[in-house]
């Protein structure tokens, strides 16, 4: 299930929901991304997140489907927030449950890495000096490409 929302989420509740996938679940891997005080700029006081409604959900669903073809994925959950976010706010949640930890770790990391370089979201950093649209990082692109090489 995919949610794009302005509201905060409870990672604990999401984890609990993933436990409901059934008795075949042996592992849950989750990732939560937070707003930190430095990115392209230092002294970041908040972010603004923009997205392309419709395309975003399609791209993320495609990533979940791809993860399901490559690993044992019993259930996957992605939440991404949009709009204004403050320092230390939660931005993104990815949770995957599987029979075994290897599949859960890999699928969770793959979805997160690929989301960063293919889902149409854009971050703007807010500082006391001004605003700045974040640049895509070569490191992030390389991480996503490394999953292609493993396939």
């Amino acid at each position, binding site marked *: 299930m995919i949610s794009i929302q302005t509201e905060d989420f409870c990672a604990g509740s999401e984890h609990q929901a993933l436990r409901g996938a059934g008795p075949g679940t042996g592992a849950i891997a989750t990732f939560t991304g937070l707003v930190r005080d430095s990115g392209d700029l230092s002294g970041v006081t908040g972010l603004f997140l*923009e997205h392309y409604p419709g*395309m975003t959900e*399609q791209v993320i669903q495609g990533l979940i489907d791809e993860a399901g073809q490559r690993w044992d994925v019993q259930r996957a959950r992605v939440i991404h927030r949009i709009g204004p976010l403050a320092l230390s706010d939660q931005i993104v949640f990815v949770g995957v449950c599987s029979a075994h930890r290897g599949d859960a770790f890999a699928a969770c990391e793959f979805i997160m890495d690929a989301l960063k*370089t*293919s*889902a*149409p*979201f854009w971050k703007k950093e807010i500082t006391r000096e001004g605003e700045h*649209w974040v640049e895509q990082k070569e490191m992030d692109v390389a991480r996503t490409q490394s999953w292609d090489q493993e396939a």
Partner: protein
Amino acid sequence: MSEPTVTIRFFARLREELETEQLSVPAVANQTVSGLLASLASRGGPWARLTGDQPVMVAVNQAMAKPSTPVRAGDEVAFFPPVTGG
């Protein structure tokens, strides 16, 4: 009957630089993404940046597209900077 058009959307830095979120242009026969981009860039001013040094990504009907992707009447074409979510 209304003229066949293509809807164009801009996001993030491009939306701000062009001060345009969405516009509608007449559909052109045998048009591609690169042809549409060149015609928008020819408006001059900030529009020229569409074919400048900064990378511009494009989606046609909400699927990632290439310069050679055809653009037809009724299509939604979106231009945006490389994505930075997560």
